[in-house]
């Protein structure tokens, strides 16, 4: 049989999906054991036991100085910034994406500007933001919004433009005015895409968050990683990276579940 026609069963699919993760874990364990055998005080690839010790210490033992559970307070600080920024970006993208997509005059006014803004490397703006907005939360949230919103606006405007012209004409023949068509025809059809656009921007959003926290913060997951970097504390950095990845994956899955739940029709007619 041709390889293109060989399909795994559900069980095999699950096994295959887990395989790369298991391989990575195995490779790490072997590498770590080899290095520790050479030099018991090696810090680069700590043993899994010392990693779990670190996780225990960070997550379940209160910090003697502040009385806080460091992992949770870091997570709360980072997620607060991230979700505030993503919420603002989504609102901006929805408003401007619909306007740019639907109204030719606003498209002529704004589309080239948004396209240019989305090309500015946001990290290059970070010093400006720190100078203008100070080192607090505002500058970090603004950085993420600047990095994420223009692309979401463009994505949404394109999606609006992709709606078949026939649908808009049909809505006009049903007596709809611009506002009604925006509300009842365009908005519901682009909302699923807005959620998908948000999912695609999770990666960049985390990137900007970590970058901002690395440079100036007193809490947050990125702050912690860059703080303990000075002591080569790989036993803290590894679990933090895994935790960040896990949070991002979970957000991604949740958003997709939300889309399918709220907009059941967006699942129909999709290629299986």
């Amino acid at each position, binding site marked *: 049989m041709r390889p293109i026609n060989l399909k795994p069963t559900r069980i095999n699919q699950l096994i295959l999906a887990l395989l790369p993760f298991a391989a990575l874990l195995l490779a790490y364990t072997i590498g770590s054991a080899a290095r520790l055998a050479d030099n018991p005080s090696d810090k680069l690839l700590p043993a899994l036991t010392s990693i779990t010790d670190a996780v225990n210490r960070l997550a379940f033992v209160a910090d003697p100085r502040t009385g806080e559970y460091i992992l949770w307070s870091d997570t709360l600080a980072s997620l607060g910034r991230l979700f505030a920024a993503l919420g603002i970006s989504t609102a901006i993208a929805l408003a401007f994406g619909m306007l740019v997509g639907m109204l030719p005059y606003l498209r002529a006014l704004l589309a080239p500007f948004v396209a240019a803004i989305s090309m500015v490397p946001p990290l290059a703006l970070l010093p400006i933001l720190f100078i203008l907005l100070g080192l607090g939360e505002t500058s970090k949230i603004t950085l993420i919004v600047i990095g994420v919103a223009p692309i979401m606006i463009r994505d949404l405007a394109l999606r609006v433009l992709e709606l*078949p012209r026939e649908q808009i004409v049909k809505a006009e023949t049903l007596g709809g005015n611009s506002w009604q068509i925006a509300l009842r025809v365009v908005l519901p059809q682009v909302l699923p895409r807005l959620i998908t656009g948000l999912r695609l921007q999770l990666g960049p959003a985390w990137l900007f968050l970590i970058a901002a926290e690395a440079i100036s913060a007193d809490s947050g997951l990125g702050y912690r990683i860059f703080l303990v970097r000075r002591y080569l504390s790989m036993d803290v950095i590894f679990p933090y990276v895994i935790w960040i990845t896990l949070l991002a994956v979970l957000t991604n899955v949740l958003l997709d579940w939300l889309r399918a739940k709220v907009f059941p029709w967006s699942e129909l007619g999709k290629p299986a």
Partner: protein
Amino acid sequence: MIEVKKVWKEYGDQIVLERISLTIAPRAFVALVGPSGCGKTTFLKLLLGEERATQGTITLDGKPLSPEPGPDRGVVFQRYSVFPHLTVLGNVLLGKEFTAKKFTARLTGAARRAAIEESRALIAEVGLAGSEDKYPAQLSGGMQQRLALAQALIMRPRVLLLDEPFGALDPGIRADIHVLMRRLWNETDLTVVMVTHDMREAFTLATRVIAFERPRSAPADRERYGANLGSDIQVWPRRVAGGFDPDAPLELSADSPDRDDPIATKGTRRDDPAPISPGASS
């Protein structure tokens, strides 16, 4: 009554239509036929208001046509005529909601119940009873076009414009929807203009068949000479809206023979009623 006077349509340098003059009587069913790229759909877009004529005027009942699509002219396209995010009921209801609520575009309470009642009746009329809560993606192509018809008709438009509405359907399903289409035209105060490239469909349904053609179609002339009206045929026997027995079979249907097929041995409307027996020689 739709009056088209000396209409030209040009896209930049390219002339698509030239000197189109045409009067369409109220309650007529006009089929526009012609080869691909001869401007039938452009002409329909002019009637719809989606495009504007470069020269000439189009009037509907003496008044110039509004320059954008409006509720006086319903439309069914070959595809994308229904909204994928609304159920069958929601799709039909939408026109009512647009008309009644300028700001929220949603009906509530008694008004909503009345509108639902009316929508359900129309949905049943086009043969979709029982599918009210399905989404268009769950319907077959023929059912989607039935839905598109119901959705357009709830606005009670003066004119219904059809752009190859049944072109993508199987012959059997198409025959069924032809029966429905003729009944709707027969029972509703409606002028229908349909673009099709299926001659049989044109002559099955229409009261009048108008052929668009390019008198000069040599490659060098293509851009500079547009299409105009070739033939304008009144279908015989003459059909009049309201004059039909809605259950009578169509004169032409999907199982009647096509031009190149052997002729049917039975039937009342053939030119030559003499039966042809298999053994007879001519």
